[in-house]
């Protein structure tokens, strides 16, 4: 078999099955770590919550709201990763 055929039909399908769960976890962490851009004053979810909190001193509702936003983003993603992990677990 040619190298390309070996890769496409045998190696890559198995490699993808093995790498999907860790890749999924990395992607999840990336969603959470995107909050770090707020330290260089990007107004993402956390940056905005912090800004409004600093103006109104209503830190508790702001951060609880931000937490809910992150949960909405990450919990479904985590469920999807779990499902993939189960599907590819042998």
């Amino acid at each position, binding site marked *: 078999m040619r190298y390309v055929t070996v890769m496409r039909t045998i190696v890559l399908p198995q490699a993808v099955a093995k790498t999907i769960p860790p890749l999924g976890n990395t992607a999840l962490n990336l969603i*959470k*770590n*995107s*909050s*770090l851009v*707020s*330290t260089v004053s990007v107004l993402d979810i*956390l940056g905005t*919550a*912090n800004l409004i*909190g600093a103006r109104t001193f209503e*830190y*508790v509702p*702001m*951060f*609880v709201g*931000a*937490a809910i936003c*992150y*949960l909405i983003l*990450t*919990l479904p993603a*985590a469920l999807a990763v779990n499902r993939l992990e189960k599907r590819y677990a042998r």
Partner: protein
Amino acid sequence: MDLGWLVNRGTLTFIAGGLLVTLQVAAIAIALSFVAGVALALGRLSRFRPLSAAATIYIEGMRALPVLLVIFFSYFALPRIIGMKLDPFAAGVIGLSAFTAALVAEIVRAGILAVPKGLIEAAQSQGFSGRQILRIITLPIALRQMMPALVAQFVTLLKDTSLTAVIGILELTRRGQIVFAQPPFQPIPVFVLIALIYFSANFALAQAGRRLEARTL
């Protein structure tokens, strides 16, 4: 290139002091998150439903949140909830510990579940109480199996201490910022120096972990 502004006694002492603060934050947070993590893992594995549900919600919720949010929360919002002022150091340690405890709990839980059932049944047949089995058999064996994952988690924690710079703890990263915010305004040499210090600290921590691993085997 003249690096006299960076490599002089005053500046280096200032940065070394930052390393000391970083290590203090990390050490306290490692200890707190380990204790809390074991407690959370035992809670999640408990047969008492409300306890197990509460621990599960805490662990899964915390794992889905960014660390920085947790640190901000413990510095800005927590004092309003508990009605007590927290200095940046305490808030940073609480935030990092609360977050890392959830991750430690999952490592501990996996370790406990990996202990062979036969060992526990053997202990039960010899008349050990549940608490004795946990203390003498399950936890020591589980601890040995989870050392690599635990060390990796604590290396991550040591790196995450840099996030406490945003709430004003004068640790390594924050002091680096202060140094390059002064003339001659050169961030690159400062970042290289700080990066090397983090690398050395984490390398030492990983090595210590490896040695501990060998000893517990």
